[in-house]
Each structure stands twice: as structure tokens, then as C-alpha cells.
């Protein structure tokens, strides 16, 4: 018997024994660290987050104890929502950002379609339009802040715009720049989806008499609808989870009128760097957000799936 035949015999004997210890050893070896990390950071930490939300920090003893009553931190979230007004402002700003992102998505779709249709210089344009997707947000915010403070007032010959980042126009200034920059990022999304649309389908549509706009409306848009609806869902989620450009523009010095939901949550988390006392409240805010964001996200996904173009 040669070497491979001997090994084949060994494998058969191993299978007949019913327990392949080498296979199980291999699986444990390659999965133990990823699964441990997952269990620790996603399961245990999220359970701890729920428990933390029902605790309070005792400065004198330097530890966390069960709050009395248990829902004290959630009551505080509700109090801030009703009395403080900051959460209401955050909701309004986040809603505005979400709606405007959806309404302005067609610009990214048009730009992606232009690249797909290979307008003159499309290769060069494609490279330039990819760059915003890969640059550091902090660096982008630095360029953006200075552009809003110095460049834009000079170009528009309106010195009054120099203070736009410091007064009641702060939110709209940050949102405006983030939207301008985000057009290129959204284009990347659309390009990926449009690359999957069959050229034959477009040609058949053109033969049937449709122009480029007609092809976009009747062929491309239905084909990329799943991507656009995913974008809508992701935008809704990021309203709750992402501080967006707000934090990178102003860290913890953003004015209350410019708060968004994501920024408010991030600020609670940011404060945990210096104070244990804020941990329970921050955990409670996160849980409240999850209970609101999860059904909204699933609901939006269901509505968009129903509204979407049908195969026939």
C-alpha cells in the first residue's frame, strides 16, 4: 500500500469510529477566538447594557448599584424628552436630515447613470468621485469647516456667512456640507447596483423608442430599487447611530439647536470617557433608541418592499 492509500484507509476508519476529532479540533481552533469575541461584545455586552441601564453609580463607593426604582434612568430619558427639549430638537433635525437625504438621492442616481452611460471624461470623473468615499472624515471636516468659514463667504461675496457655523445656521451649514460631500459616497452605492443592470435590457428599451431618461426611469430605476431601499433603511439607522459630521466639526461644543439623535447618543458615550456616573444613563438612551429604531427600520423595510416595482 502506498502513502495515499494508507491515508484513505485511515480516513475511512476515522469515519467508521463516528467522531472525527481532527475535524472538531480544527473547527474549534479556527472559530474559538471569533466566536468568543462575538459572544463577549455582542451578547454579553448587550445584556450588560440592559442591566447597566437599571443601575446607578455611587461616587462614594465607586461602583454600580441597582437603581431605585429600576426604571429611574429610563424615566430620566423620558424627562429629558418632555421637559428639556433637546431630544425633540434632535428628532426634528434627524428627521429633516433623513427626508432631505432621500429627496436628494436622485442627484447621486443621475451622476451614477452619467458615469454608467460613459459620458465624455467618465473615467476621470469616476476616479475623482471615488475619492470622497475613502478620505478620513476628520480631514474632510477640517477642509469643510475652513471652506464654510472662509471660501464660501468670499465666493458669494457675503461676509455674513463667516459666522454661519457659530450661530443658528450651524445645523444647516453642517448638513449642507455633509450632503454635498455625501453625493459622491451615494454615487458609489448606485454605481455598484447599476453595474448589474444588463446592457441587453437597456438596448431593447432603446430599440423600443426610449431615450436615456426613459431607460433610467423604466429599466435602471426598477433594477436598482433594492439598493435604493437599502440606502433608505441605512440612512434611517444612521440617524440614530451616527453623529455624522456634527462631532467632527465641533466635538462636544455643538450648539443645542444643531443636535441630532446620533450626536446626542454619541455625546452620552463620549462623556463616559471621563465619568462612570453617566454610564447608566447612556445605556438607557441606547436601549430607548434601539426600541424605537428597530421597529422603524423593519417597518420602513416592509413598506419599501411593498411599494417596490413588481417583476411583471
Amino acid at each position: 500500500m502506498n502513502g495515499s492509500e494508507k491515508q484513505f484507509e485511515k480516513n475511512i476508519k476515522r469515519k467508521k469510529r463516528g467522531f472525527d476529532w481532527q475535524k472538531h479540533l480544527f473547527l474549534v481552533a479556527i472559530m474559538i477566538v471569533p466566536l468568543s469575541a462575538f459572544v463577549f461584545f455582542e451578547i454579553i455586552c448587550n445584556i450588560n447594557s440592559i442591566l447597566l441601564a437599571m443601575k446607578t453609580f455611587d461616587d462614594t463607593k465607586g461602583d454600580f448599584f441597582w437603581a431605585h426604582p429600576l426604571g429611574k434612568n429610563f424615566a430620566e430619558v423620558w424627562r429629558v424628552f418632555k421637559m428639556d427639549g433637546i431630544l425633540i430638537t434632535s428628532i426634528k433635525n434627524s428627521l429633516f436630515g433623513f427626508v432631505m437625504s432621500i429627496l436628494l438621492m436622485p442627484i447621486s442616481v443621475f451622476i451614477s447613470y452619467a458615469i454608467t452611460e460613459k459620458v465624455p471624461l467618465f473615467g476621470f470623473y469616476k476616479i475623482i468621485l471615488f475619492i470622497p468615499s475613502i478620505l478620513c472624515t476628520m480631514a474632510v471636516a477640517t477642509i469643510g469647516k475652513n471652506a464654510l468659514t472662509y471660501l464660501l463667504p468670499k465666493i458669494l461675496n457675503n461676509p455674513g456667512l463667516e459666522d454661519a457655523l457659530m450661530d443658528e445656521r450651524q445645523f444647516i451649514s453642517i448638513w449642507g456640507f455633509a450632503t454635498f460631500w455625501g453625493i459622491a459616497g451615494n454615487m458609489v452605492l448606485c454605481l455598484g447596483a447599476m453595474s448589474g443592470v444588463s446592457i441587453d435590457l437597456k438596448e431593447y428599451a432603446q430599440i423600443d423608442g426610449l431615450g436615456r431618461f426613459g431607460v433610467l426611469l423604466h429599466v435602471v430605476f426598477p433594477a436598482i430599487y433594492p439598493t435604493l431601499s437599502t440606502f433608505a433603511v441605512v440612512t434611517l439607522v444612521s440617524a440614530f447611530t451616527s453623529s455624522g459630521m456634527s462631532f467632527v466639526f465641533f466635538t462636544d461644543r455643538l450648539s443645542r439647536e444643531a443636535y441630532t439623535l446620533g450626536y446626542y447618543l454619541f455625546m452620552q458615550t463620549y462623556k463616559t470617557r471621563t465619568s462612570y456616573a453617566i454610564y447608566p444613563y447612556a445605556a438607557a438612551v441606547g436601549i430607548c433608541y434601539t426600541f424605537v429604531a428597530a421597529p422603524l427600520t423593519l417597518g420602513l423595510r416592509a413598506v419599501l418592499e411593498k411599494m417596490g416595482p413588481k417583476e411583471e
Partner: protein
Amino acid sequence: MKRKKKYKFDVFTGIMFVLVSFYVLCLLYLFFWGFLTAVKDEWDFVLDRNVLGFPNKAYGWKFSNFRRAIGLFPLQIKGDNYASFYQQFLYSFLYAFGVTVCSVFAKVFVAYACAKYEFKLKGALITINIIFMVLPIVGGTPSAIQMMRRIHIFDTYIGILFKNCCYHGMYFLIFYGTFKGLANGYSEAAQLDGAGHFSIFFKINIPLVANTILSVFILIFIGAWNTYEEPMMFLPSMPTVAYGLMVFSENSLNANAPSLMCGAYMICLPIIVIFCIFHKRIMGNLTVGGIKG
């Protein structure tokens, strides 16, 4: 000789072309303006209000602003310890590289196991991944910080690497699909020749998906280099350049526009270099994934 196909313009295409060109010109002008600002003298920009033009001849092109900005970057960590710009750069590289390696291989290992083996947890792992991708679970950071402090891995390099060893995410599904698509013939042939599971995985299957691994590696590296939230919250004693730029811009004494622009451009330089080398791979995979890495 190839005849160049003439592009057919209609009204809609004309509008598209104008829109794209306008947007690209705005972006290019912003990058160019940022660079011009970075090489202007502080007096030229702030006092003489030379915002739009080229650097004034009286002051000249101040490429030394980049060296000056490096000197203004040092960041206080603990007590009297400061992290210089070069240390922050090193920390950024260590963070980005370490996190990318852990993240990529965690996903590769679990995806391979799920794609090529039958075991009890397989279905649950895939389902859990999809659930975590769909369901927004928010605000777990304070809890994660507390738990990491409890087991003494908070603010440690090992701790941040362990945190990024979670297998779930979009790239797990990409690797799962890739491994699923691999023919079993190679593995079976290697098995007949006496190769064990480790050899089949590392010597047969990994090289077959090396292309995908490299593409995902580049995308995750770019994302890790650019991020500031995670290193700021979980690794404050190893500040990255992104965090350093944030603190630099907060310091009103040093935060004039030319210095800030120098800092911003220096942070972007490594990514621009990576993009120039791997632009086809990055653009190809970003469009396939459709989501920023």
C-alpha cells in the same frame, strides 16, 4: 485603425454631463483650494485675507507649514506623556493593520467553517449574522467599555484587537459566498494525499481566495485608518492621527487655517497613495459591495 465612437448627446445626457462636470469641478476646486491654503503664510491668509488667490509673492509658498504642523501635533496622553505626530502616525498604522488582520481573518475562518463543514452551530451563525446586520442595536459602547475594564483589556492593544475579532458583518457573507463557490475537488485531492484540515485550509483554500481577501483587506484598512471613534473611546493611550487632528483643531492657539489644512492633507496622504496603487481593485470592489469599506 479603430474609429472613435462619437458619443450621442441628447437633452437629458447634456443635463447629466453638465451636472457631473459641475460637481466634479466643485470637488477639484475644494481640494485645490485646500492645498493652496496649506502652503500660504498665516499672515497672508488671516491678516491680508488672501483667501482665494495663490500665495502672495511677498510671503512665498510656505511648504514649511507641513513641518510646522508636525511640530504642533503633539497630544497629551497621561500625565506628562505626549504622543508626537510620528507616534500618532505609528499608532494609526498599528491600529489599522492590527484591526484589519483580526477582522479579516475572523470572518475568513468562520466563513470557511460554515461553507465547507457541517456542524450544529452552522445555521445559527449565519442567521445571527443576518439578524445583527438588519437589526440596529444601538448604544452598547458604555457597556463595552465597562466590560473591558472589568477584564482589564480596556485601553490595551490586545483589547482593541480582540474587539475586532467579531466575525459578523457584510464581509462574512462575501467570504461565505466565495468559499461556497469553491470546488471541493482540490480539498479532496489534498485529503487523499494525506493533508490534514489545517493544511487544506491554509495551503489550498486560502490561496484560492487570496484575491478576495486582499480586496477586503484594503477596504477595511482604509476604513480603520480613517476612523477616530473606536480608537478614541477604547484606546485613548494610543491616539491616532485622526484623533490628533481633532485635538489640534480644538487648540485655538495653533488652529489657523494653513496649519489645519496641512494636518488634514498629511492624514490623507497614505490613503491617496494606497488608492493610486490599488485604485482598480478599490473601485471594482466598492462598486460590487456598493458600500464604503
